[in-house]
């Protein structure tokens, strides 16, 4: 067999590149200078103390982080972190170059899967969303698409976490109102993992936290960041930056602010517990100045997310990005156009986590039908990202000779083998006109609704496998949280 000399290491898969090396360096220097000169507000004493101890200037809540401290923190960021499901099986590696698409947290509203009308998000939706995401082949991790409205005020996060973690074996991302709830979510993770050490060895969820743009690590965000760092809970620490409002309207300026405020969390976490996993990035888009809405379908979302992905990876961190979201209110053409644009861009740039697949109405309404649509689009984008394999087998010169001019390839073994690699749609319609007509002329929306309802009705998910004693432990944690929260409200 001949040895081929084509270069297989360069561009084996497509590489989408936005920023030049010089541009990256300029943005990075902007970040370093901002952290040192402008600084950031850090509303947690323990965090400020550790920053001060390592050479940061602290003035009240304002902290100025010199570049050597940033470099020291970046030095201990782990290159890879493994996640596990509650059954202890590896389900994710958080590292540059691996991408997982999923939904996002906390919209107040949800599209009711039966009536298709917007309503408040309910507890039953959380486990349903987890199950559907568990079933979708291109959804790589689970989140809620909403904030539960029908449980005790202040415990929406905890109920969501308790219900979702049992209904999926995919990676789970969970948010929390405050550090107390984050601790309870951790306790649920520990109960499922089988002990504190077991959780440290095999963490079974990622905590999601947000600082506030511009440059404020508020008490709840930084309290949780500190807690997760100390307990080695992998965490996302990312702002939702609104171009023109909370950050500069110029994209480079937006990236400088967004990176700076996220890096505060990285620095605090690494100084407290070197090697703990922190993922940064976050929602990047513009304020639509005409409608005063945060534009989730804007092309700028994809542009800035791509640039930020390159920047975050440039400094050696995993990126948390977004795609598959839309500003439209119901499932329609705009849903597909905006989602496809952002999914494809995200796929080409390769962030680690890509959230918001299933966000509609500018992030205000979660829509599981949108997630199902996104799943199909992600599958298509993945084909392009897969590139083309070029070798003796795929060149098929011998098959071409066998078939010759005027023949066909349908009977070749080679065809049978390689046709299996072709992407097969689950929603896109390729019926003949007659078949489509016979089926009642279903539109894309009809097919999405049918597939989604099928999954809701028929896909069980893994929750029945959770051992009953662990279920009891989880119920106890929820009961104690109820007592804690209600005790608090009596004090007021």
């Amino acid at each position, binding site marked *: 067999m001949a040895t081929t000399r084509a270069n297989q290491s360069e561009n084996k898969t497509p590489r989408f590149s936005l920023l030049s090396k010089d541009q990256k360096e300029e943005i990075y220097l902007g970040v370093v200078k901002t952290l040192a000169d402008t600084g950031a507000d850090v509303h947690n004493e323990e965090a400020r103390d550790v920053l001060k101890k390592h050479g940061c200037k602290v003035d009240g809540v304002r902290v100025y982080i010199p570049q050597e401290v940033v470099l020291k923190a970046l030095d201990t960021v782990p290159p890879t972190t493994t996640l596990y499901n509650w059954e202890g099986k590896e389900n994710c590696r958080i590292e540059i170059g691996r991408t997982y698409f999923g939904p996002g947290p906390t919209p107040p509203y949800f599209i009711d899967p039966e009536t298709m009308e917007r309503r408040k998000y309910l507890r039953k939706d959380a486990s349903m969303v987890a199950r559907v995401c568990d079933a979708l082949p291109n959804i790589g991790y689970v989140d809620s698409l909403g904030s539960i409205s029908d449980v005790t005020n202040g415990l929406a996060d905890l109920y969501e976490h308790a219900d979702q973690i049992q209904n999926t074996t995919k990676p789970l991302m969970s948010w929390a109102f405050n550090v107390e709830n984050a601790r309870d979510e951790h306790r649920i993770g520990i109960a499922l993992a089988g002990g504190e050490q077991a959780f440290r060895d095999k963490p079974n969820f990622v905590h999601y936290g947000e600082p506030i743009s511009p440059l404020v690590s508020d008490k709840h965000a930084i309290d949780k960041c500190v807690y997760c760092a100390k307990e080695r809970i992998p965490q996302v620490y990312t702002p939702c930056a609104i171009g023109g409002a909370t950050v500069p309207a110029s994209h480079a300026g937006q990236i400088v602010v967004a990176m700076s405020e996220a890096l505060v969390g990285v620095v605090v976490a690494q100084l407290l517990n070197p090697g703990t996993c922190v993922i940064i990035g976050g929602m990047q888009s513009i304020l639509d100045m005409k409608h005063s809405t945060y534009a989730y379908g804007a092309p700028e979302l994809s542009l800035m997310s791509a640039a930020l992905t390159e920047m975050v990876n440039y400094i050696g961190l995993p990126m948390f990005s977004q795609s598959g979201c839309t500003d439209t209110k119901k499932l329609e053409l705009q849903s597909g156009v905006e989602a496809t644009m952002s999914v494809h861009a995200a796929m080409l740039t390769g962030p680690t986590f890509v959230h918001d697949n299933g966000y509609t109405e500018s992030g205000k309404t979660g829509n599981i039908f949108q997630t199902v649509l996104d799943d199909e689009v992600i599958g298509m984008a993945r084909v392009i990202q897969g590139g083309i394999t070029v070798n003796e087998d795929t060149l098929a010169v011998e098959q071409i000779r066998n078939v010759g001019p005027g023949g*066909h390839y349908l009977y070749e073994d080679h065809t049978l083998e390689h*046709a299996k690699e072709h992407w097969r749609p689950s929603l896109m319609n390729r019926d*003949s006109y007659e078949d489509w007509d016979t089926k009642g002329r279903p539109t894309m929306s009809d097919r999405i609704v049918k597939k989604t309802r099928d999954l809701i009705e028929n896909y069980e998910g893994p929750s029945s496998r959770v051992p009953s004693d662990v279920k009891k432990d989880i119920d106890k944690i929820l009961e104690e949280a109820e007592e804690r929260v209600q005790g608090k409200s009596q004090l007021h």
Partner: protein
Amino acid sequence: MEEKLGSISQTLIEGKADELQKQVQEALDGGATPEDVMNQALVAGMDAVGQQWKAGDMFIPEVIRSAKAMSGAMDIIRPKLSESGGAGSGTFVIGTVLRDLHDIGKDLVAMMMEGAGFKVVNLGIDLDAEVFVDAVKEHKPDILGMSALLTTTMPQMGEVINALKEAGIRDQVKVMVGGAPVSEEYAEEIGADSYAPNAATAVDKAKELLQA
């Protein structure tokens, strides 16, 4: 015996040509009638292939494999059938019209029709209207199938139908048309009796025509 015939169907669905020939021979040697092997094993198997194809559970390369295996099995069965009078689903003549060199779809229809038990005469490609007329006279088929892949050659199917009329034999044969640009409306327009959007449907449509 029923089990054996079922196993032949399964081998056919899996497209294992050599294995199929062996099983068919064994069944005949074991006393099965060629009609039973044909109808209960092979035609039943191809019927399942057609159904699975239409349902999206089988894909063209697999269908072709089964059809080719069927063809190999027919080489054994056919001489025996003519001894005993044939399975008798009907005769089907098919060809691609003038100035059109496309044969994949047309051959697929031919194979599926053969799989459904039809005696199939595949005329080839780029055929003058006269060839179709002569073939109808010679083979006296129940159904004439025509295929065109190009919008530029599609009208030629109408020309063939006109030629059949001129020859006075239009009412002796049912005409079925197909090919990517062809539609139900177009088939009606040119006076064809039936249209099938794909090879699996062609079999159903052919059976309907024979019952009509």
